């Protein structure tokens, strides 16, 4: 059962990822990316990583995709007249990314081999309950410090969008 779901999800993931790259219309690209993100969340659920799955849906399928769609609409990229990059740049980019992929694959292939049978120990490692405990005990300081990060981003948004009162009076 698990295997069938895995193969179905993998097919959806790969198919929509390819659609994202090859479709001419940016909106279609963005929409297939949403489907791709959802199927990746499905993979996480298969591995029993509930928190990761939910966060992935909230952050990627929700926030980031909305941001991308808005950008496409506001900047009016919704046209097919994408400029052609020089062929040398395309080749260079392809080679560079193939090399990165090769290095990563070579490194990761030497990790533990494929897991062939699932072994259920009964111990709870990664449910949201356990994660919450780790986050608020062991990782309390980073958790709090992340709020400073968000605060800075928020002040920045206000700072950049606030009107210069003095300037407009002149």
């Amino acid at each position: 059962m698990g295997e069938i779901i895995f193969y179905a999800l993998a097919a959806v993931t790969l198919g929509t990822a390819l659609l994202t790259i090859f479709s001419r219309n940016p909106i279609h690209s963005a929409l297939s990316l949403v489907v791709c993100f959802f199927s990746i969340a499905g993979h996480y659920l298969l591995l029993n990583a509930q928190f990761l799955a939910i966060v992935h849906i909230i952050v990627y399928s929700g926030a980031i995709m909305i941001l991308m769609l808005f950008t496409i609409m506001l900047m009016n990229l919704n046209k097919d007249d994408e400029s052609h990059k020089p062929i040398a740049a395309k080749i260079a980019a392809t080679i560079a990314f193939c090399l990165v992929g090769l290095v990563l694959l070579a490194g990761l292939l030497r990790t533990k081999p494929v897991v062939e049978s699932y072994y259920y120990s009964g111990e709870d490692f990664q449910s949201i309950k356990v994660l919450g405990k780790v986050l608020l005990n062991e990782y309390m300081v980073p958790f709090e410090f992340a709020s400073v990060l968000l605060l800075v981003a928020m002040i920045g948004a206000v700072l950049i969008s606030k009107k210069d009162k003095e300037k407009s009076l002149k």
Partner: protein
Amino acid sequence: MNTLIAIAVLGVIVLLAEIFNLRKAIIPVTLAGLIATLGLTVTEFGVTESHYNNMIKVNNFTVAFSSLFIVLTIFLIALSADFYQERASKISDFVSIKLFLLAGSVSMVSFGNLAMFFLGIEVLSIALYILAGSDRLNVKSNEAGMKYFLMGSFASGIILFGIALVYGAVGSFDMDMIYEASNSATTVDWFYIGVSMITVGMLFKIATVPFHFWAPDVYEGAPTLTTATMSTLAKVTAMATFFKLNMAMNGNMKFEYELVIVIVSIASMTVGNIMALRQNNIKRMLAFSGISHAGFMVMALLNLQNATGSLFYYTAAYGLAGIAAFTVVIYVCKGKDNENIENFNGLGKRNPLMAGILTASLLSMAGIPIFSGFFAKFFLLNQVLNAGWLVLVIAGVINSMIAVYYYFKVVSAMYTKEATEEPAKVPFEFYIVAVLAIGLNIAIGLFPSALMDLF
């Protein structure tokens, strides 16, 4: 740990002051608070402890660098009152962002866990992206903010990927565990891929040569006070962090890694200096000079065991000289739409004190004796020589000589050319900041052991 809490609380107090309409009190209160924090930090000297499951460490390294960052921030905030005069309604935002930036840099040197390191670097970078683009009606500032944001977030992504690989290899974010893993022979290969990716990201933040392309444009476009922050506080922080990361991740540094560092160092010094020769905009020139200084600072990695003192001395000398130089640049270029060297014509007659301070700080950066820049280079090159890299020492000396030329271009404009306009009035705090910064610079030049023997 106390330092971090104190700075974050101070940032929140500044935000609250705006609500209660205490705008005039913001800068004095912040300065007083920072001086108190400096005192609090210094009292922790000599203590070695770790807080909250080793998230934050306190030792001589963290205390020394945190104090340096606080001193630099005190100077930068003292300059804010006049610099943001026209935008007084935003002063609390600017000051609090700078305080949080300081909190980020303090956590970047005192982390005991990679999670704290990454959060620190993100707080620092995001604060800088905002400050770089904060002059939103100016196209150049927009360009600077956008460029820095796109490239910087890409570099952060690479660092994060590196951290993930290191975690995959070690199974922990804890620096002690990572140190053990880097010394063990059984460490898996992708640990080193992770270390390389973190190195790439950090070299970007310091702006060394293959990753320096953002620096001149961003430095030129950003408001001058932000440029001062980037070239002093941010650069020094990134360098100290990179050094600390290397102490943990490169327990037995491979020869190939050393070779990469040597090449990066030589390339940064050479490219930075040669490009600086052709610049007519002083902010661009200082950007390229910053790239060449980054090349010098990276040298400290070749002698990880002994170079801590020399690196601290170098960063202090460079930071203080940078503050003094930028104070004068802010004064001279105030109200002008460019920062060309012609603006400095005749400054020697118009305002001898400011001209003298700029001369002194540029001489310190060039490495002329009495000023601490000379001793900083001397100690660092000495460490490199002990590590056995004679080539690098020769390259460093040649580059110091090239650097003198473009620094003197500004000095000769100040003293030999005729002034084109009437002198502007210098705000009181500019004198204090400039004199104090250059005074400290000369003082540590006269008593180098005061900083060198801290470690």
